[in-house]
């Protein structure tokens, strides 16, 4: 909502520095997005177009003789062709500094002198039109300063952001009321009732409201003697500055009243409304109407309609009028409509049809039904003013309504105000804050309680808490002061949250960079990554089909990220992510899909061993023991380089390399290692194992035994390791696989695995014999339980 200082001043004597006034409005909840003190446009004057001539050397510019002083034209080169001889235009004389900072100087264009500039509205910052020169109405004084002539000297334009709960502030009068209360100056809506001569006898229109819920009040008036033309410049300027395009005198007055009072209204050419009969009903499914903008609109049941006597639609209630009854140059009689509409219905209809207008924006918030008569009077007053011979009113104002809602009084406790707002408020203070903004405050028997009646223009305010906001708003949020409450408990992260941070630290400690790929996938992204997910969770209303699936795995996103980096010559990137993945739920007690947090790492230019190494780092850092089970054909993974990861018997993820076929699809021409884990499971295990009791370090010497076995390729190294661990018994201090060796000299289908075993007892030095015994036990255990033999 934009407001103009001169317009506000028609309702309250508002004075002050434009920026201080802006601060007041922001502090009242009408956030000022821009304050514009209108440029005085020194040097820009009203000029008359004396003659127009072609430029001898150029087609795209013409020569204009402009009169600033009578009979003393100066030549100007101009690129616009919308002027005619005799037109009045804004003219920037030599030396003028334009709003954009450009200084007008005498110059030559293709050999012809130009002594100034004919200006468009946009060049003067007086509108958005920059295609043609601004044509001023006749009657202005040639040579006089433009801003003087159009009455905008020293005016200020503010652009306000109005919250949805403030229908009253969607009008110049409403903003003036709030600001006047803050500045402690009187506010008044003028009386326009006596402005036009007495209505003529007549009965030219009738109204039938079928649905009182849709339309609580319908007010109408017949006006004759209308001559449709241009509205006066001051009106056009105000409309333009507030963001509306001038159209014709009748429509401009209609819009002017809406901006001024917040009361959208509509005008019909009475001669196009058969018998002047207007009805209001809800649409039926599939009904159509041709709207003012020339589009055919299809309606649904529930949409509000204005209909003629044959029940044919002639307008969409509160959203847009129909084309059949539009005001035109030949209109002589007007039917003015001021209706109140059910805000939810207007919101639904305008949203569905994509027709958000100034009118619908106001109806959605809720308009003030009490203002209907004022608005009719204001409309007639203005139209009469600008019609040279005046207008004629015919018949009485038609006003159809049921029982209009009167707001009930709300009990407001001083004690509750003080508790909510953190400052003690007295009854007097509360009254002084509320009365200037139209609330009625009545004392009760209790000193703590008063009865507050909310005005009709504040439908948002219903409860004691709502009134607390009004008290705070007008007292000033920033004037209330500050206090800091203290939690009775210590602030902290949970063990889970700390562990999640540790996991990320381990990842970056291992050189990985955290990525955040898009969690939305295209339908074929899942199979592109080599995954097969039966029912990935779909979005019901995605923005695009490329973003219509909720990721079932972190793999597609990380592959895309690595692919992106490869295409930008960032090879060898090592990315990880922790984030939620989704799947269809089998849990009948919850309506939500399955959602759990995964940790995944994609290491480009790395083989499976790097991913296993990363897993080791993680296990070591969190004190969690991961078990690997080599598994062929894990989805998306290299068919012979993958393993499932278990904690105990619970499978929690996978590790390995990405299937080369998949990598090809992402144009990644290096091996990529992959690690994928359930975060909740790791965290659980890490927390469970975090309180390991201390084991005293043995003071006795240790002995090392190295054993190399020829092991069948079908046997996992981890299986041998486990056997050794069990066989070595209590004296085992450390066990490491330190060499893997394959060669022609070894039997086909097996490899050499060399382990180093460190033995140490807590209570004695292990003798040679005892060490030898353990060594033998280890060899026998491995040879008997696996396809393995000791290498001599």
């Amino acid at each position: 909502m934009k407001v103009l200082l001169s317009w506000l001043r028609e309702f309250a004597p508002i004075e002050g520095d434009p920026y201080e006034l802006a601060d007041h409005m922001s502090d009242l909840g009408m956030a000022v997005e821009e304050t514009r003190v209108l440029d005085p446009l020194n040097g820009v004057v009203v000029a008359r177009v004396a003659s127009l001539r072609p430029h001898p050397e150029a087609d795209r510019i013409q020569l204009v003789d402009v009169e600033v002083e009578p009979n003393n034209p100066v030549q100007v080169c101009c690129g616009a062709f919308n002027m005619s001889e005799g037109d009045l235009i804004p003219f920037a004389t030599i030396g003028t500094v334009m709003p954009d900072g450009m200084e007008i100087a005498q110059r030559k264009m293709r050999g012809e002198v130009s002594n100034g500039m004919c200006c468009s509205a946009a060049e003067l910052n007086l509108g958005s039109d920059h295609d043609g020169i601004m044509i001023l109405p006749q009657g202005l004084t040639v040579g006089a300063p433009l801003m003087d002539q159009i009455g905008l000297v020293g005016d200020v334009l503010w652009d306000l952001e109005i919250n949805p709960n403030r229908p009253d502030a969607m009008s110049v009068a409403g903003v003036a009321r709030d600001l006047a209360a803050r500045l402690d100056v009187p506010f008044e809506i003028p009386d326009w009732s006596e402005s036009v001569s007495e209505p003529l006898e007549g009965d030219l229109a009738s109204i039938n409201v079928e649905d009182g819920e849709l339309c609580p009040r319908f007010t109408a008036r017949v006006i004759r003697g209308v001559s449709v033309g241009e509205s006066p410049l001051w009106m056009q300027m105000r409309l333009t500055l507030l963001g509306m395009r001038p159209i014709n005198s009748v429509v401009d007055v209609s819009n002017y009243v809406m901006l001024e009072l917040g009361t959208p209204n509509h005008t019909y050419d009475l001669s196009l409304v058969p018998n002047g009969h207007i009805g209001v009903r809800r649409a039926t499914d599939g009904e159509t109407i041709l709207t003012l903008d020339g589009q055919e609109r299809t309606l649904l049941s529930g949409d509000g309609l204005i209909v003629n006597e044959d029940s044919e639609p002639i307008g969409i209630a509160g959203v847009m009028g129909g084309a059949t009854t539009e005001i035109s140059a030949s209109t002589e009689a007007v039917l003015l409509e001021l209706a109140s509409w059910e805000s939810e219905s207007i919101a639904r209809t305008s949203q569905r049809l994509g027709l958000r207008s100034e009118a619908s924006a106001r109806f959605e918030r809720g308009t003030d039904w009490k203002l209907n008569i004022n608005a009719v009077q204001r409309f007639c007053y203005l139209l009469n003013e600008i019609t040279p011979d005046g207008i004629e009113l015919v018949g009485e104002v038609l006003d159809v309504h049921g029982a209009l809602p009167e707001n009930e009084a709300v009990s407001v406790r001083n004690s509750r105000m003080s508790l909510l707002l953190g400052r003690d408020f007295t009854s007097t203070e509360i009254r002084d804050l509320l009365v200037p903004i139209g609330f009625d405050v009545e004392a009760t028997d209790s000193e703590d309680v008063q009865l507050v009646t909310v005005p009709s223009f504040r439908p948002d305010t219903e409860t004691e808490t709502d009134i607390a906001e009004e008290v705070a708003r007008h007292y000033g949020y920033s004037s209330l002061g500050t206090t800091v409450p203290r939690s009775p408990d210590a602030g902290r992260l949970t063990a889970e949250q700390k562990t999640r941070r540790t996991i990320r630290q381990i990842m970056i400690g291992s050189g990985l960079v955290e990525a955040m790929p898009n969690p939305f996938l295209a339908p074929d992204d899942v199979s592109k990554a080599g995954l097969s997910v039966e029912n990935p969770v779909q979005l019901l209303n995605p923005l695009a089909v490329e973003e219509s699936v909720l990721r079932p795995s972190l793999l597609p996103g990380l592959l895309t990220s690595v692919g992106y980096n490869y295409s930008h010559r960032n090879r060898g990137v090592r990315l990880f992510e922790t984030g939620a993945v989704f799947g269809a739920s089998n849990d009948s007690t919850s309506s939500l899909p399955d959602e759990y947090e995964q940790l995944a790492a994609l290491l480009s230019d790395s083989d499976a061993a790097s991913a296993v190494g990363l897993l080791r780092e993680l296990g070591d850092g969190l004190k969690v023991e991961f078990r690997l089970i080599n598994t062929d054909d894990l989805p998306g993974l290299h068919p012979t380089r993958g393993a499932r990861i278990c904690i105990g018997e619970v499978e929690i993820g996978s590790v390995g390399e990405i299937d080369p076929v998949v990598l090809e699809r992402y144009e990644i021409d290096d091996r990529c290692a992959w690690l994928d884990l359930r975060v909740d499971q790791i965290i659980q295990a890490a927390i469970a194992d975090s309180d390991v009791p201390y084991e005293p370090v043995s003071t006795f010497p240790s002995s090392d035994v190295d054993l190399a076995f020829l092991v069948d390729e079908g046997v996992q190294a981890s299986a041998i390791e486990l056997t050794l661990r069990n066989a070595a018994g209590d004296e085992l201090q450390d066990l490491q696989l330190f060499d893997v060796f394959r060669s022609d000299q070894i039997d086909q289908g097996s490899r050499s695995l060399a382990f180093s075993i460190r033995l140490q007892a807590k209570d004695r030095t292990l003798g040679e014999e005892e060490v030898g015994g353990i060594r033998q036990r280890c060899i026998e255990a491995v040879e008997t339980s696996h396809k393995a033999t000791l290498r001599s």
Partner: protein
Amino acid sequence: MSVYEQIAQARASAIGEIEQAGDMESLTALEPMLFGKKSTLGGLKRLMGEVDAADKADVGQALNQAQTDVRQAHATVKERFIAENRRAQLETERLDLTESLGGSNRGHLHLVTQTMERLEDVFVGMGFTVSEGPQAETDWYNFEALNLPAAHPARSMFDTLYLDLGERTEIGDGDGGEATNILLRTHTSPVQIRVMESNPPPIYTVCPGRVFRRDTADASHMPVFHQIEGLVIDHGISLTDLAGTLNEFTAAYFGGAIRSRLRPSYFPFTEPSAEFDITCVICEGEGCQTCQRTGWIELGGCGMVHPNVLSNCGIDSEEWTGFAFGFGIDRLALMRHGIKDLRDMYTNDVRFLEQF
């Protein structure tokens, strides 16, 4: 030759030999000739028997002095050789420390994670806990419990992405088993509802996390972004407590020069509601292009928790009051580092990620 002359000669010859030794090896080879019984000075000790008793002390002293001198000379030369050898050895180990191959092997957390952790740390320091909840939510938790029933016009403030769960979409939620829509949470407020449902007040918690809106990506919007919200429910909590808490947070997070202020606003879940502004971090309040010359930047929304929201969570709004606030994490990161386009944060280009 007198005995003294013999001693002097032996001393001079020994020292001469020492000084002629070229390296540690030849010095070591000399040692039997310098010390011990076989040495010339050692041999002179035998003369002691022939010396007059009266001279014995003097001769003995001369002999000792000569031996000390030889040892001294030997030690000096030996030390020199040790030092030279050490220097030669070290010279062979000389390194150019600027010849480092490869870059650093330290990874990087995403800027959003770093920002989120910093925010969590500030609030933990102020006595808050950190709460989490699901990203896929029911209509109840995301809207209805927050005083936003289905037909509420303010729902249009949230462009919501809904999930298609087939038949399951119609399964009831916890609220009387009515059919519900499942959606991607548009804010982390549903976490607040879950916290209030399952924990009796007092509550001091923040809810950081990922949120979703049906927004086309541009320089300042992403359909997926991150938020942190705060919730305090206690006896006697007021609007000034909200202002004070946000002030304390602002000073802790941005530094002392940056202040905060509240402006009236509207949210269905709070009453009174406010917009939470901070001093423009670019111009520190002087007025610049970023803050549209106001000196303030809008950071987020806040307000006193609406009584309907409290009663939806089974909390008596006459006994307990509270406040809530929320703001975007991504935008905070953008502001702090002067990033112009939000989309840059999500390309996952390592040349972006490694800068933080």
